[in-house]
């Protein structure tokens, strides 16, 4: 079972998320909260994270269209984004949020917009890779139950 190529692939893909700096230790905390009583916790919380943050992305986009920019409101949304991303373990996204906040505080609109683009890219990459990982993990679980034990 441990030697199954599919399971090895799953483990490898998971490790890559950490090695590439997309996820940090906090994500492991979330994984540890998944057990028999809460068998889908990780996927559920990932879904909630993306639901919450996509709403924030919309808010930020709207803010960035204002003239003049309201850096206070903008920072408020980014603060929330950063908070959730930190609790989620989204390392790169969190870093972009920190940078974004710095530009907000400096009242640097150009910097804000540039960083936001970068943030969205990292955010989308993480989402894509997590989805691929979960899909593979699901496949592996199905394969496991299909084959006889031992």
């Amino acid at each position, binding site marked *: 079972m441990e030697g199954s190529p599919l399971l090895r692939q799953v483990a490898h893909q998971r490790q890559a998320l950490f090695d590439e700096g997309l996820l940090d230790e906090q994500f492991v905390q*979330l994984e540890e909260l998944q057990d028999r009583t809460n068998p889908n*916790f990780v996927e559920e*919380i990932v879904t909630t994270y993306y639901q919450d943050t996509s709403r924030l992305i919309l808010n930020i986009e709207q803010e960035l269209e204002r003239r003049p920019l309201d850096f206070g409101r903008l920072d408020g949304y980014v*603060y929330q984004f*950063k908070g959730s991303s930190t*609790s989620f373990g989204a390392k790169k996204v969190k870093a972009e949020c920190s940078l974004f906040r710095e530009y907000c505080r400096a009242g640097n609109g150009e910097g804000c917009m540039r960083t936001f683009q970068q943030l969205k890219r990292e955010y989308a990459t993480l989402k894509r890779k997590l989805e691929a990982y979960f899909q593979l993990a699901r496949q592996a679980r199905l394969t496991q139950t299909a084959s006889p034990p031992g």
Partner: protein
Amino acid sequence: MELQSDVADTQQQMEQQHFHVLAVDDSPFERKLLERLLRECACKVTCVESGDKALEYLNQLDTYQSNSADSTASLSSSQSPQQEGLKINLIITDYSMPGMSGYDLLKTVKGSSSSWKDIPVVVISSENVPSRISMCLQEGAEEFLLKPLKLSDLKNLQPHLLKSLVHYNKDTKCSTDTGNNNNNDNVVKMNNNVISKRIAMSPEPSERRPKPKELAVV
């Protein structure tokens, strides 16, 4: 499945005392995470999205409990609302929320003339702002936790939950019972995310100063 004697049953019930925690956070993600973490600590959890909703809930409980009390002739300690599982043993609230902040909620709860002021309150925040932390501790928060929360942060809240039990059961106004003082040491010995004031026997003003050990830089 284990077979148990009646005695063991009672003991297990006491050990598995399901504390009821009221969790307040405007973020659905944070609420979901908080709820899971708290349930992992064998707590019953009620999540609300704002300070206003929290107060509303506390009010509802009060109404329910006073109605129940009226219907029982005499309320012995074994028939306490605690057994109903409804009474709130701890409030854990995010600091930054739109409208009523966690600090506002803390002030309201601690400033109330009812039993609310005896409910331990823990404030959580993703920002490490010393002035904010001391403000909350001085207002009566038991702990100020920094996000991201770990399971160990919440497990360390056990003494506060026990304190609320003791407090209620003994129906006294004093802050702690000697029995809990051993646990207080565990609370003070903390990890990077927890800043706590010592739970003193008699809360002198100086005792209520926060002890900022190992402030985590977020």
